């Protein structure tokens, strides 16, 4: 049998159900792949081999007792900002050295209830701030397609591991594109749910009005499976919505005849790489050839999204990260008085990007600037949302580029935060509007790097995304491509 770790959840689920493989075998196979390959990629910041094999044994016992859930025995990695009781939760920061989670995030707990095996913790930009994973204070993470390039971020480890077959699936979090952008850069599927669909309880907050947890997987069908498991109301998160979760497996249809696909004309503008544009336009042509109807839609305020986002997100971050003060948990730098302790701890614990964003957020909330920046940005957020409301009157999903360029070389933007921020131009609008979005592979650049097609749907439009995405996958081969697992590089 070909290596288990290269397979999808759907394939593995069938093998496990048929008794042709056990979760222990599968988990051991994935661990062996990580041991052999992750030194080159750096996608895991912590492995839980022993606990993973214990969970796999338990999953096999549940299956022997007659259970047959889609995720039973499937190894999944969790981004290093999700609490898992008894494990670290460092958010790739020095500040949380030594922290041990006293509880488990709801999203992870739901995977565990389904029998998933939590393999380890995925690398990321510190406190989810960044688009390249270069802000990890623990270790660099590299793109498996070209280890001189970034995997994207902030869920860089989550995407790189899936792309390199070092995890069957992972959880990431997306505040301004942090699931979709690395999925696009690494050639896997990544979905940011509608705000409020997935509980944020146990997620280390970056920007509370924007953060959502979501899956990164090898196929759209696998995304549907993980999304099904983690979605739904949670009384522990007051922003979690009391809505019925549809049966997402029903959304995996291949016929898109009559589907209205919105083409965001404003997103094909300056700054869009020619290879990305070519691949995305080819994807639109594919949809058209499959019988979908292409409809031009206008999102005129999206060009202001980056400006509004970096006010709102940093403002919320400056408040959320106030809790990291060296008093109750994490690393502490002692001081003569409490203020000295807090200032010294934060100076030593936070990396430069986190400091920059805390300062920016503190500034836009400070007296005299609150209206000029923060309230203004919130009003622009309203205009961006209104654009989407109007667009979705004309179409079922919007399809466009996920990122302006393919994955860029490590170091290219690390000294220029504004250039890094501009890379989020196509993903940030969905967070501000609170709608759902997904990236899926739609081609390769002339340099051989994956390109992502972004599908956006209205609030609670996940089924439409999965339908459009699954249909595209069935008609194309891009999702089957895998990076060469050369050990000579890096």
């Amino acid at each position, binding site marked *: 049998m070909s290596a288990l770790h290269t397979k999808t959840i759907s394939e593995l689920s069938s093998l496990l159900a048929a008794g042709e493989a056990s979760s222990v075998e599968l988990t051991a196979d994935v661990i062996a792949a990580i041991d052999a390959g992750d030194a080159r990629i750096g996608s895991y910041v912590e492995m839980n081999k022993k606990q993973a094999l214990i969970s796999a044994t338990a999953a096999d016992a549940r299956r022997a007792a007659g259970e047959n859930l889609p995720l039973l025995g499937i190894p999944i990695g969790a981004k290093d900002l999700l609490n898992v009781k008894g494990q670290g939760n460092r958010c790739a920061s020095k500040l949380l050295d*030594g*922290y*041990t989670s*006293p*509880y488990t995030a709801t999203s992870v707990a739901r995977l565990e209830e389904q029998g998933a095996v939590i393999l380890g913790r995925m690398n990321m930009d510190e406190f989810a701030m960044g688009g390249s994973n270069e802000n990890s204070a623990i270790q660099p993470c590299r793109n498996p397609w070209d280890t001189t390039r970034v995997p994207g971020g902030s869920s860089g480890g989550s995407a790189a591991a899936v792309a390199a077959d070092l995890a069957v699936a992972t959880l990431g979090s997306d505040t301004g594109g942090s699931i979709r952008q690395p999925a696009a850069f690494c050639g896997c599927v990544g979905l940011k749910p509608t705000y*409020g669909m997935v509980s944020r309880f146990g997620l280390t907050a970056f920007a509370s*009005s*924007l953060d959502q947890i979501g899956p990164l997987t090898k196929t759209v069908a696998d995304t549907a499976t993980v999304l099904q498991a983690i979605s739904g109301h949670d*009384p522990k998160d*007051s*922003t979690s*919505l009391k809505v019925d979760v549809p049966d997402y497996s029903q959304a995996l249809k291949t016929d898109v005849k009559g589907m209205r696909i919105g083409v965001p004309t404003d997103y094909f503008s300056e700054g869009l790489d020619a290879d990305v544009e070519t691949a995305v336009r080819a994807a639109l042509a594919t949809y058209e050839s499959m019988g979908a109807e292409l409809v031009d839609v206008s999102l005129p*305020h999206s060009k*202001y999204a*980056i*400006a509004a986002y*970096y*006010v709102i997100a940093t403002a919320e971050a400056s408040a959320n990260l*106030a809790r990291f003060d*060296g*008093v*109750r*948990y*994490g*690393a*502490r730098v*002692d*001081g003569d*008085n*409490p203020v000295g302790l807090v*200032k010294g701890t*934060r*100076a030593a614990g*936070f990396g*430069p990007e986190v*400091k*920059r964003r*805390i*300062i*920016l957020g*503190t*500034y836009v909330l*400070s007296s005299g*600037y609150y209206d*000029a920046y923060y*309230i*203004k940005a*919130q*009003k*622009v*957020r*309203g*205009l961006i*949302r209104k654009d989407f409301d109007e667009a979705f009157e004309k179409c079922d999903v919007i399809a466009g580029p996920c990122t302006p360029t393919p994955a860029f070389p490590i170091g290219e933007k690390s000294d220029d935060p*504004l250039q890094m*921020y501009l890379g989020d131009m196509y993903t940030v609008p969905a967070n*501000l*509007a*609170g709608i759902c979005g997904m990236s899926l592979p739609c081609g390769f650049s002339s340099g051989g790097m994956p390109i992502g097609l972004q599908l956006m749907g209205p*609030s609670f439009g996940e089924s439409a995304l999965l339908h459009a995405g699954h249909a595209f996958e069935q008609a194309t081969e891009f999702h089957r491509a895998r990076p060469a697992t050369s050990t000579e590089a890096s």
Partner: protein
Amino acid sequence: MGFISALLMTDQNESMDVRYVANLARLNLTEAEADQFQGQLVQILDYVKQLDELDVEGVEPMAHAIRVENVYREDVVVPSMDHDDFIANAPASINNLVRVPNIIE
């Protein structure tokens, strides 16, 4: 022109003092960090200024993606998380309490 109005005339972003704001945020910065961040943040704020192109008169500020009223739960006792697990995370503790430097002289 008086001193105050001269101050108000200066570019808004020029008035951002990274060292002052860092203190508000309870963050020590090295001189090198302060100098670097000052330049970068002024550049970012200049970019943010494009929001001024938009007429937002009468637009409702959108604080959240969804409108949620106060969320209450039933007032029933449920098990708390384990106290020892929390104290084990504290960088310093004494008598099962988190220890910090003197707050009151």
